[in-house]
């Protein structure tokens, strides 16, 4: 059924259609509307049977989900940013125990300085935690990925994180096609756990494992994730048959067939990139786009195939490996047969800075012209940075970093070019 709803509401409806049995709720922007909506459904009795638990922290949210999942219930929670870091120990634990929890991450920057706006540093900080990580491009895909996530998680007994851009998607009202309960039931079988706490058949879950078997446990986690690379495209095909639309999969390519320059990105910024590429194509520039839907496991073969005809690659990422450069570009470079010198990293949109077509035209143009630096910070205010660095050279007590920058700027507002 077509609806014009907020992204969070669309995700809440998708999660509810998956018949979750335990939902753990803890507020953190920009995720909060999702659990609020689910809480209303449980209170109204439209989502039943379901236990909606208001916990005291994100660490508890993931821990309650771990207990519920281990006891055989379909468990869901949502978080973002600091919340994801606060639950990090339990995030790793859920993966290590092999519990098929599904969690939405409404991507948001990590402080300090505290910042509630969107980038991908939260989810990417957990890239090696053992969860499958899927990134939605728009609200329809966010909705669809949640339905696929429960199926993936439960088949493989691996937790799945569905990442959607905070505010840009969670708070945006868009048209979405909400499937029927019959469709979801046809796609998502009843949860049959691979391991469960059951007095009739007692098992010990979470035993201590020493050097004799730890490597094997970790290898199995890796092997399962690599197997996911085969299942995801197959299940995206099945999703198309049941729901009648393309959603999910490993990657999405756009205008890539004859592209000499390929832009790689994750999430909602793909829309702006495609619009920019359309305009450049109209001027005869051979440029295309590769969107990464499945970030973990990393789809090495799919990325390699998609980039096989490219002369150069621009990775535009809302994340930063401080002291190195790009996180995603490293994964891309490792998957590309071409020279890593021709993989350009553009760090963009940190802390919610707007990524405009004008700026994208500039960097993509530089890439095509061969003048783009290996690492670029899109729309970085170089003057301010230079002045702060000069101040630090001159003054021992140069002051708090964020405050110094705001003073240099003379404004305390988000800078939009």
């Amino acid at each position, binding site marked *: 059924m077509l609806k014009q709803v907020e992204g969070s509401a669309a995700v809440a409806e998708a999660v509810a259609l998956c018949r979750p*049995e*335990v939902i*753990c709720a803890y507020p953190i922007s920009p995720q909060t509307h999702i659990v609020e909506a689910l809480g209303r459904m449980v209170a109204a009795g439209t989502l039943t*049977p*379901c*236990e909606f*638990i*208001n*916990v*005291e*922290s994100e*660490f*508890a949210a993931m*821990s*309650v*989900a*771990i*207990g*519920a*999942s*281990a*006891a*055989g*219930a379909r*468990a869901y929670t949502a978080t973002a940013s600091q919340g994801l870091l606060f639950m990090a*120990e*339990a995030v790793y*634990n859920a993966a290590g*125990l092999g519990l098929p929890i599904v969690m939405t991450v409404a991507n948001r920057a990590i402080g300090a300085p505290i910042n509630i706006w969107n980038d991908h540093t939260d989810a990417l900080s957990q890239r090696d935690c053992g969860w499958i990580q899927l990134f939605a491009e728009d609200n329809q895909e966010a909705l669809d990925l949640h339905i696929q996530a429960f199926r993936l998680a439960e088949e493989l007994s691996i937790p799945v994180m569905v990442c959607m851009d905070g505010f840009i998607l969670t708070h945006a009202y868009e048209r979405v096609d909400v499937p029927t309960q019959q469709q979801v039931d046809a796609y998502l079988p009843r949860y049959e756990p691979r391991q469960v*706490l*059951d*007095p009739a*058949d*007692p*098992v*010990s*879950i*979470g*035993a*201590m*494992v*020493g050097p*004799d*078997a730890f490597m094997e446990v970790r290898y199995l986690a890796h092997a399962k994730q690599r197997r996911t690379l085969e299942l995801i495209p197959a299940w995206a095909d099945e999703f198309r048959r049941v729901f009648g639309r393309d959603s999910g999969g490993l990657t999405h390519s756009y205008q890539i067939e004859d592209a000499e320059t390929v832009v790689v990105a994750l999430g909602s910024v793909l829309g702006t990139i495609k619009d920019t590429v359309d305009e450049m194509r109209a001027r005869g520039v051979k440029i295309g786009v590769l969107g990464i839907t499945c970030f973990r496991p990393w789809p090495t073969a799919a990325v390699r195939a998609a980039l096989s005809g490219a002369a150069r690659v621009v990775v535009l990422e809302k994340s930063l490996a401080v002291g190195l450069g790009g996180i995603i570009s490293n994964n891309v470079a490792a998957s590309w047969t071409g020279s890593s010198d021709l993989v350009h990293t553009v760090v963009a949109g940190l802390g919610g800075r707007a990524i405009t077509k004008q700026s994208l035209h500039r960097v993509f143009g530089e890439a095509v012209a061969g003048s783009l630096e290996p690492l670029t910070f899109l729309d970085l205010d170089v003057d301010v940075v230079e002045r702060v660095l000069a101040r630090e050279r001159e003054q021992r007590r140069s002051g708090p970093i964020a405050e110094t920058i705001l003073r240099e700027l003379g404004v305390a507002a988000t800078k939009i070019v």
Partner: protein
Amino acid sequence: MSEQPVRFYQTGTFTVGNRLLPEDERSVQANMRRTNSLNSGHRACQGCGEALGARYAIDAAMEATNRQLIAVNATGCLEVFSTPYPESSWQIPWIHSLFGNAAAVATGVAAAMRVKGRSDVRVVAQGGDGGTTDIGFGCLSGMFERNDDVLYICYDNEAYMNTGVQRSSATPPAARTATTMPLGGSAGNRFGQGKNMPVLAMAHDIPYVATATVADLHDLEAKVKRAMEFRGARYIHILVPCPLGWGHGSAETVRMARLAKETGLFPVFEAEHGVVTRVSKIRRKLPVEEYLKPQQRFAHLFHDPPRRDVLDLLQQMADRNILRYGLADETEAAA
């Protein structure tokens, strides 16, 4: 002839008298059909109080729930010595997740049971004092506050024993640990610090709170069974002496636990909905030195000259407990 309550004075222990009781009043441990939930073969130290406490408590909980029990364990000695891969001593469904989240994981298990209509299956969470009073306190308080249907059992050996005897917020004043050494004029752990977890549990107004020691099997089992008569959050705090960390003989574990109670340093009581309903009276009050002297962790108090000042402070603590909980047995004193 007036009736007298049954007491077991024969040897100073409560276990020997078991044989004199009618069968239905005997301890779970004395029953041939006890579940051995924590089975033999685990790797606890000789004389481990926690192994004893866990076995007593979980077997009692198993009997009280008709064997429909799931246990959640915090990281710590109990977890490590009971489940070294690929072995497990647990004969019941058991999960270990992290150090600080046992209460929350138990909430999740209880929620799963509720949503599946399995109200017959009950949930126990257990951890040491570090996992309870320190790193797990946030999750525990959350579980209490929501009144989730979980019995949380703290096996209190008064320090982080698994990592090599470091101070926790349950470590008593003056005790030596690896991080509270009696050096430089100070005498071990500071006075005026620490958390009184049973009282904090009561402050949450949860249905049932109790303390117990491994010295009194009947009392411990009765409290676990009583706890299982309630729905909602329940807390039992069991003092479990640790021969390694306390520095007493491994055959002295039960005696140490009894002395902790008989000196008044560890008050044994139970409370319902935030109100103390019963206390275990002290039969023959003993000076705190009787309890402290056999323990290496207090050895620095008994050098020449002994630290009378510190011993006096510890005696005052015991006396305050006796007054606060009414631990003195007036009938005994009168007789």
